[in-house]
């Protein structure tokens, strides 16, 4: 795009306030985005980032405050006005229609794509944009979305937002776009964002991965409890000062890695190598085992297989052997009609009940203990689970699994959308639990997290291609192993 820089901000929200019941989600936020800049938006879970996004996107109307586009105040700002002004959005939760093909989803996202031959045009537009952002993506536009992996869906969503049909794309909002992407794809995306910005577009970039924010943004806005607390050029921040601005502290990695030999011990969980290919999998008490490799190469499948294999579909054993932390919240995690408390305790009802009757006092106590321990940001555990921000929902799922007495916990990229402060706390909890003898199997798309593990299995094409132990668990080794083929 070669549009000359506009004299005005692409969009400007001034002193916006919105509250949901007693929760002040936004408490006077002012934000100005000019053409050709990438604004990084950071803050703890529930700080109000997604709410700002929804305001700019037109899905929510602020209770107070104004919104202006290209310097002119728009009194009745809504979804249509936002789109007309070139605002596009990639939401935190996946928002494609899973039953439609990629082409049809493009049609839905672009109302102007009509008339004869729209399928062909849509295929061309989305195909070329995917090629442009994610070379070698392997997505056929005629594929049905439900047949795609989560990462591929995220890629489609990003490409749809950036593709231009009739109206020019001026501002793209990316709400945690890299949470389901592995490092390679994330790098491709960030590269594209820079070129888009250089060409005069604007981007609002939300992420909990501070290195991404620091490397990609021109300006960083830090939010806390519904307010903007700091706003400075990105170059003035480093990781520490950014964390400090958000009100958290980064702790050092203080745990000694376990690298005991397997000899003579019985594994808690194990799986033989698949079809005789690759390495077998096993995990011992007290270990944190990481699953690494490029996204969608069989890590989630193995976790689900392990889980389904160790739980019964017909009877509930009193002592659960394994617990599971879902990464795909809406699909595998949340019970949307329930309040937070019930969502938290569902996996541990065996421990909270006698003769099948749930002890509600014990349940409430357990809930409060975990609310404190993992800092779930809500006034009342009686609130509906969907009133929580994405990251806080994820914390509830975490608490759900950790509250059970299960000796092994399977985690399917569980830190998606969890803010850095909480992550640190969760890491500490994991370590403490592991020291008490619990085992964790942890699939993560975050290299930092993989490097926290005692032992790492690297996946490629559905099989385990490498096992790294102790000090061998480094970013370089994991990356190198990810690209090795199956050892014959």
């Amino acid at each position, binding site marked *: 795009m070669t549009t000359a820089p506009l004299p005005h901000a692409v969009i400007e929200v001034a002193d916006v306030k919105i509250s949901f019941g007693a929760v002040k989600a936004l408490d006077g936020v002012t934000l100005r985005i000019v053409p050709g800049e990438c604004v990084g938006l950071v803050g703890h879970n529930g700080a109000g980032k997604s709410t700002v996004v929804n305001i700019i*996107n037109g*899905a929510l109307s602020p209770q107070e405050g104004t919104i202006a586009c290209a310097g002119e105040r728009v009194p009745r700002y809504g*979804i*249509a006005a936002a*789109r007309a002004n070139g605002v596009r*959005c990639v*939401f935190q939760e996946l*928002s*494609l*229609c*899973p*039953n*439609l093909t990629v082409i*049809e*989803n493009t*049609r*839905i*996202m*672009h*109302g102007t794509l*009509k008339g004869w031959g*729209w399928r062909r045009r849509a295929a061309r537009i989305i195909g070329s944009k995917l090629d442009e952002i994610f070379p070698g993506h392997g997505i056929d536009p*005629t*594929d*049905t979305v*439900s*047949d795609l992996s989560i990462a591929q869906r995220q890629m489609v969503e990003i490409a749809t937002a950036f593709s231009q049909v009739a109206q020019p794309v001026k501002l793209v909002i990316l709400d945690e776009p890299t949470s389901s992407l592995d490092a390679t794809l994330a790098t491709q995306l960030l590269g594209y964002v820079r070129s888009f910005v250089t060409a005069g577009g604007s981007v609002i970039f939300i992420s909990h991965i501070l290195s991404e924010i620091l490397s990609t943004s021109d300006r960083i806005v830090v939010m806390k409890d519904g307010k903007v607390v700091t706003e400075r050029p990105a170059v003035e921040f480093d990781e520490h000062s950014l964390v400090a601005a958000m009100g958290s502290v980064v702790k050092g990695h203080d745990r000694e890695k376990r690298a005991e030999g397997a000899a003579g011990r019985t594994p808690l969980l194990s799986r033989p190598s698949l079809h005789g290919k690759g390495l077998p999998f096993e995990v011992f008490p007290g270990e944190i085992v990481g699953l690494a490799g490029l996204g969608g190469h069989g890590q989630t499948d193995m976790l689900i297989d392990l889980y389904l294999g160790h739980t019964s579909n017909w009877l509930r054993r009193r002592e659960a052997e394994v617990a599971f932390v879902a990464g795909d919240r809406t699909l595998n995690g949340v019970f949307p009609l329930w309040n937070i408390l019930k969502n938290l305790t569902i996996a541990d009802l065996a421990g909270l009940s006698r003769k099948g009757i749930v002890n509600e006092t014990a349940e409430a106590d357990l809930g409060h203990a975990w609310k404190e321990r993992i800092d779930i940001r809500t006034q009342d555990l009686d609130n509906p689970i969907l009133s929580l921000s994405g990251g806080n929902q994820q914390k509830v799922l975490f608490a759900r699994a950790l509250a059970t007495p299960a000796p092994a916990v399977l985690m399917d990229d569980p830190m998606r959308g969890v803010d850095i402060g909480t992550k640190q706390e969760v890491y500490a909890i994991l370590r403490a639990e592991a020291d008490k003898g619990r085992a964790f199997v942890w699939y993560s798309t975050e290299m930092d997290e993989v490097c926290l593990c005692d032992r790492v299995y690297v996946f490629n094409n559905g099989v385990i291609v490498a096992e790294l132990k102790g000090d061998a668990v480094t970013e370089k080794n994991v990356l190198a192993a990810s690209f090795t083929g199956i050892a014959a």
Partner: protein
Amino acid sequence: MKKILSSDTVRLLIPALSLTILLISVFYLQPRAMSYVGLNLLFNLAVPIALATIAQMLIMTVNDLDLSMGTFVSFVACITATFLQATPLIGVLMLAAAIATYAVLGVLIHVRNLPSIVVTLGMSFVWGGLAVLILPAPGGEAPGWVRAVMVSRPPFVPMAILACAIIAVVSHLLIMRSSFGVILRGVGGNARSVERAGWSILKARAATYALAAFFAILSGISLVGLTTSADANIALRYTLLSIAGVVLGGGEFTGGRVSPIGAVIGALTLTLAGSFLSFLRISPDWQIGAQGAILIVVLALRLLLNRLENRGKRP
């Protein structure tokens, strides 16, 4: 790992195969059915069922369910055999009003966030009552043109087969190929993101309901064309039949996953299953039970084919 068949094709292939198997067994039991007249006799009552199934499928596309389909078709049949025959203008106006009512129902369900099952359950009483008012006793007469269309004998292909093919193609184009269909299915798949993309879910729902009413009206009219007259209870079983047809055809209750061609095939399968049974000559005590059994067998077949298909897909 490149897929050979898309999931849509598979969704279609399975019902088509079960229909074929059933058809072969019917031909085996009753070779007389293998003729122009025979095929027409086997399938002509499937035409209204196919239309009702498409109507139900439309409603299911947006994750709703219409429990009033049977009474509505009966109601339309009553209008067709009376007003549409005697005073066509009034008849057409009444049918238009029925379509408008359906659209209003769609709006009501959306705006008040009501469960469609309850609203249509209520409506089933309303349509039933109206039908009884229009035709307190069975009777009426099919309009001449309707009768003429339904008993016409096109060359080579019997009317029943031709009509089903047309229904399948038209609804496929409408729902699977057109932009309108994409929005409809999108609403079923993820209403929230369709809304965030700037579409009006309200309008989409209203349009779906109106279109469903349109197909249901065609169903009622074609039914009267076959039976020559109507009564207030004539099509009550279409409610369950239409749901069963959609499911047999690979449609699902939620998520906007439907297949119009599959639905038509499902309707044909259900009709054929009934004939298959009468050709088997079962003791009267168990004739009803055998209908259940055949439904189970057809569904088991679906499962089996599904399994084979999946096995083929895995490396």
